[in-house]
């Protein structure tokens, strides 16, 4: 299904990515497994607790898929929401699909269920690693309005592959949080261009945190995801040492940079001011020559 990924709901993203008629949802809205905690705070619940999880096919191959609904509590992870993601990843160990696709659209932990949300994110991360150690590739998709923040940004970076669209952002602390604690001199959250170039997917792609930038289009996400089916990043001691070296050399190379444009210039990007204007294809051409690549 062609169409904007950004504008689509969680279920429409799933339906658009999967082969027609192949989606089977687990604990869907009719099961009405809702948050037991929100009513205590007089807050509305969602019948799926803000995440759809299930099984389907892409190009005839079986995948497990989860999509966070960014319109419910900013896609934040509560007890039920988190457990659905963890259960899905553990199912991957049992049925060995071609991949698990995680469609993140979230601010991170749901503060109304703070402790349960935090531990849930830890459980999701462990389940991602369990699936990876079982040989199932886990692919993160980041292209929703909420980006991918907080503990969930750690989970995304624990996956084998990350695909983002231009609209996507991937970072641990939100701009408002940094500004509130450290002041606007440290981070001006109103400066959208600053937010974008510090946390946006193009910057992440250039410094090697994500693997592909695609157009804001469901078809484009599907095509990119298919390239990673059956392909895992190893978790051997050698692979972990290579990641260590990669992260260490990146930290050293850019330790004096205070703006993404300095980093891009150092990577050899000419006229770094035009990066925001490049369309995904032009940008991928640039990235394939300039970006650092994680092992």
């Amino acid at each position, binding site marked *: 299904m062609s169409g904007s990924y950004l504008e689509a709901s969680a279920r429409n993203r799933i339906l658009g990515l999967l082969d027609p008629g192949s989606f089977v*949802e*687990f*604990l*869907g809205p009719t*099961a009405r*497994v809702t948050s037991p905690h929100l009513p*205590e*705070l007089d807050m509305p619940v969602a019948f799926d607790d803000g995440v759809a999880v299930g*099984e389907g096919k892409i190009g005839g191959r079986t995948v497990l898929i989860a999509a966070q609904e960014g319109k419910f509590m900013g896609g934040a992870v509560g*007890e*039920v929401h*988190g*457990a659905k993601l*963890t*259960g899905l990843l*553990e*199912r991957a160990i049992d049925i060995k699909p071609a991949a698990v696709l995680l469609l993140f659209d979230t601010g991170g932990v749901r*503060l109304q269920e*703070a*402790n*349960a*949300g*935090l*531990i*849930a*994110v*830890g*459980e999701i*991360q*462990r*389940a991602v*690693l369990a699936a990876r*150690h079982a040989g199932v590739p886990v692919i993160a998709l980041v292209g929703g309005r909420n980006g991918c923040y*907080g*503990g969930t940004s*750690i*989970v995304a*970076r*624990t996956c084998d592959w990350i695909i983002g669209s231009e609209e996507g952002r*991937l*970072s*641990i*602390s939100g701009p408002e*949080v*940094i500004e509130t604690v*450290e002041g606007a001199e*440290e*981070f001006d959250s109103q400066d959208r261009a600053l937010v974008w170039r510090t946390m946006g997917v193009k910057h*992440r792609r250039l*410094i090697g*945190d994500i693997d592909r930038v695609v157009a804001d289009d469901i078809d484009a996400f599907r095509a990119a995801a298919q390239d990673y089916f059956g392909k895992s990043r190893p*978790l051997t*001691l050698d692979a*972990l040492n290579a990641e*260590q070296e990669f*992260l260490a050399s990146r930290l050293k190379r850019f330790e004096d*940079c*205070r*703006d*993404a444009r300095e980093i891009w210039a150092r990577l050899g990007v000419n006229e770094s001011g035009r990066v925001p204007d490049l369309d995904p294809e032009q940008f991928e051409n640039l990235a394939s020559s300039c970006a650092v690549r994680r092992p």
Partner: protein
Amino acid sequence: MSEQSRQSLERLFFDLFGGKYAVEFESSLLHGEATFQGKTIAILGTLERAYISASLALEQARYVLDVMRDHPGRPILLVVENSGQKLSLFDELIGNNGYIAHLSTCLDAARRRGHKVIGLVHELAISGGFMATGMATGDCYACEGAELRVMAPEAMSRITRIPLERLGELTKSNPILGPGVKNFERIGAIAGVWSGDLRAHLHEALSAPEQEDARRARGAERGGRLLAAKVAQAVREGRQRL
């Protein structure tokens, strides 16, 4: 480092290992080894309520990788002591989430490769700092009196728009919301609180059977988090109903 925090850590290590430990303190990082019941244990951690920056996450990962390379199977005691992830423009720019993910992936890998990886929250752990460290260990324990939280109550009140007073009432009855080790124990995030005979606690932790992830089941058993285990199991089985 302050004399007070050095003394507090030295007391912890003395209670655990008597004189049989050698730990170096380097700014926010501590590392070394100890002998416990005839076995060598690697010790690693942060101190003085450190903020987990990209570089501090990376330094810890280096030690975990070294232990895996040089001493296969050696247990690792991770002292968890932090004020959360570092909030700075630079840490976002460089992608601290990737550095933290790497540290937790290394801790997880050590556990899967047969190292007993035990977390111990010393005084404080917050949010992303807990996720980077204690939540990636096999089992995480806490010293009595330690503090654990997602966010300060004032900030939580502001963001959730729940008045501070009401939040205080709610947190008394609901382990999901309130700060504190007891709440995190009830929801299964903390395996147990260590007080009194620390050596007995460590002995027990080292002998505990290795499980994939016991936290949900513990949360259900302890009545603090009733749905997570059931929901995850239903999805794992591909069910339509709980």
